[in-house]
């Protein structure tokens, strides 16, 4: 740290420039990238929001959750139910879409709160597998509660409407570039992600964050020094569920249709992989991991023709889908063994050049 403190202005300067450049880049991307990449970016943003949520819970507070997919589903379907005006006999309340999005996030939080009799009692592996039950229950409901969810083929997602701007595929010309849903949603997603990330950073860096880490590192000791453990654990579970709910709403808007197959165990496991790869307990880690895990398969599939060892489906060899699974399985293992702290720590190390063990 001393080196960084010695030249504070310089460091701040370069960092500010970097941030400015990144911001500008993110803001103009919709003018250049085609829909595929924008959609991939949006998936990554939604994943990042979800990963921030689960990192608060699993990374910072040490509560293993395998039920994140369930809360994503609550958000996604909740938005549809609140916003739709009942097409095809499906339940829909026809509320303004912004309100529907807010309510969907709240409902996801409530769902997390309702689970607190379980989440308050259990920890570690028991909690992990108990939350796995949520995924099964969720999928059962999604497939069977036809009026609410549309069954196996899902239901259409009403496009978001903010201040008279509808986030749908009707083209809107901005500087001669046609803006479809992906381009418009890009900004909404970016805004949600920045807000979500800043809030989570505030939580983690403030008093609550220290309390959460204390609970993770030693629950009983945390209780002894005056942290209201039960209340904190319940609150973090609710907060994490709300992040998942927000991710679910964004995903639904990108997909334009919610299907139950998506919200399975694989998705829950992917989120755990994201935070481990990115770095447990930090916001930047969650974002980095989410970008890595959600963009990797897209990149490999897209460039499968050009990559060595990876081959297009139907020609023998390793299919891109398999290659990405190999890579991210290996990434989980390697990061934990050789890169404690994850991807986020790598950049942090380069910046400060000193590594203080947090734990």
């Amino acid at each position, binding site marked *: 740290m001393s080196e960084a403190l010695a030249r504070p202005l310089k460091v701040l300067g370069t960092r500010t420039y970097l941030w400015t450049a990144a911001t500008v880049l993110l803001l103009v991307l919709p*003018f250049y990238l*085609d829909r595929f990449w924008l959609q991939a970016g949006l998936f990554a943003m939604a994943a990042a929001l979800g990963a921030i949520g689960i990192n608060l819970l699993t990374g910072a507070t040490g509560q293993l959750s395998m039920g994140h997919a369930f809360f994503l589903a609550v958000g996604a379907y909740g938005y549809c139910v609140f916003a739709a005006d009942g097409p095809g006999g499906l339940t829909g309340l026809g509320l303004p879409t912004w309100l529907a999005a807010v309510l969907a996030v709240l409902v996801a939080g409530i769902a997390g709160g309702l689970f607190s009799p379980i989440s308050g009692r259990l920890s570690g592996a028991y909690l992990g597998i108990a939350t796995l039950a949520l995924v099964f229950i969720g999928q059962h409901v999604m497939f069977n509660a036809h009026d609410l969810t549309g069954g196996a083929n899902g239901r259409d997602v009403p496009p978001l409407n903010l201040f008279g701007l509808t986030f749908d595929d009707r083209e809107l010309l901005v*500087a001669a570039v046609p803006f479809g849903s992906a381009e418009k949603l890009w900004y909404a997603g970016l805004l949600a992600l920045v807000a979500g990330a800043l809030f989570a950073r505030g939580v983690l860096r403030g008093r609550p964050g220290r309390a959460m880490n204390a609970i993770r590192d030693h629950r009983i000791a945390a209780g002894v020094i005056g942290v209201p453990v039960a209340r904190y654990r319940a609150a973090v579970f609710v907060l994490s569920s709300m992040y998942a709910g927000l991710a679910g709403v964004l995903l639904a808007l990108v997909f334009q249709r919610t299907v139950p197959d998506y919200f399975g165990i694989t998705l829950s496991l992917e989120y755990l992989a994201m935070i481990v790869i990115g770095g447990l307990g930090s916001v930047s880690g969650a974002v980095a991991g989410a970008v890595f895990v959600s963009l990797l398969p897209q990149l490999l599939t*897209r460039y499968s023709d050009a990559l060595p060892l990876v081959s297009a*489906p*139907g020609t023998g060899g390793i299919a891109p889908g398999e290659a990405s699974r190999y890579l991210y399985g290996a990434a989980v293992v390697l990061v934990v063994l050789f890169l404690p702290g994850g991807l986020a720590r790598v950049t942090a190390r380069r910046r400060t050049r000193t590594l203080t063990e947090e734990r």
Partner: protein
Amino acid sequence: MTTTTYATRTAAGALAALLLLAGCSSKAKDDDSGKQAAGGIKTGEGISGKTITLGALTDMTGVYATLGKSVTQAQQLYVKQLNAAGGVCGYQVALTVRDHGYDPQKAVSGYTELEPKVLGFAQFIGSPFVAAVKQRVDGGDKGLVLPQAWSASLLGSPYIRVIGSTYDIETINAVDFLIQEKGIKKGDKIGHVYFEGDYGESALAGSKHMAKEAGLTVVEQKIKPTDNDMTAQVAALKQAGVKAIVLSAGPRQAASLVGVAAAGGFDVPVIGNNSAFAPQLLATQAGPALMKNYYVASPSLPIGADTPEAKKLVADYRAAYPKDALDNGIVAGWTAASAFGEALKKACKNKDLTREGVDRALLTINDFDLGFGPVQDFTDPKSASSRESVILQPDKSVTGGMRVVREAAASDAAKTYSP
């Protein structure tokens, strides 16, 4: 603080500059609709230079890997042969394949990636994913999509065209077979074991309709694709006293169900939908039982059918993929690719190879016959292209493991059925 304001100003300035630059982005709109190529043929998306590109969204690493592999390889074979014979209108056809591994995110991404580059999709596995992009297909993309899912809920769009009888019609024909040939009569109970989801529920609608028509009772057993052991289901159906069982599930469930029923002396006929069989099963313990009591309703003749077209396909496929199993996925893939090829040829004749042109061309084909049984009529998007089913029986000695026990036919109930 000064740094921050400075940064903000820089950012604002850079942003303004970039926004201006964005005008020069390659994405900026220019008018290029309706290119006229040589020979007066109208072309649009999916055609560049002398190549027509088609997409295939398949599953080669997920739950439908067996189907996806056969369908894709058959389609690649078709494209190769089509090009060897000169292509369409002087254009070569290319098939771009994306494997989504039955993951909704990858499926939708695959569609988004390929959509701007292809004329249409000769293959799209997974009816929930087809449903997920339906809005976009119908709304503006308008490319022809041929899903490898025979769900009735996919009917109705002029662009998304299911080939062959849908699961509900197929199940009606299957129950009709039980009535005509297996002595099921009014007042009897039949069991129906079906997958949670579109496939199973579509089939259930068919069996319920037929039960109402014929005075039968359906005893339902819903299962999940991860259930591999059908012991409990068989016990329940046996107790209910069913005289026959309809199975709308996967090959594994068929093997387990038929095997358990036979081993327990529960000797009733079992009939499955076309997805509920794979020739690989005949080598397992359930093989003999399958050959005795199991039937499959299919929208086409099996790969091992005794027609010159089938024999040629078997020979060509074997030559191209000597190591791979011969199953009915090959027929499905071949049929879909051929239907697309036929539509392209017709569109070529009409001198309109745009997406709309191909869609319209398919709508005029009413006697599509590949030598695999039922003749397909694509003129009505609201109804299945055929209402006929072929009833097959597993048989180890035949290529592809299936032989025909009842030729293509539509039962009376299937003819008048509307979902």
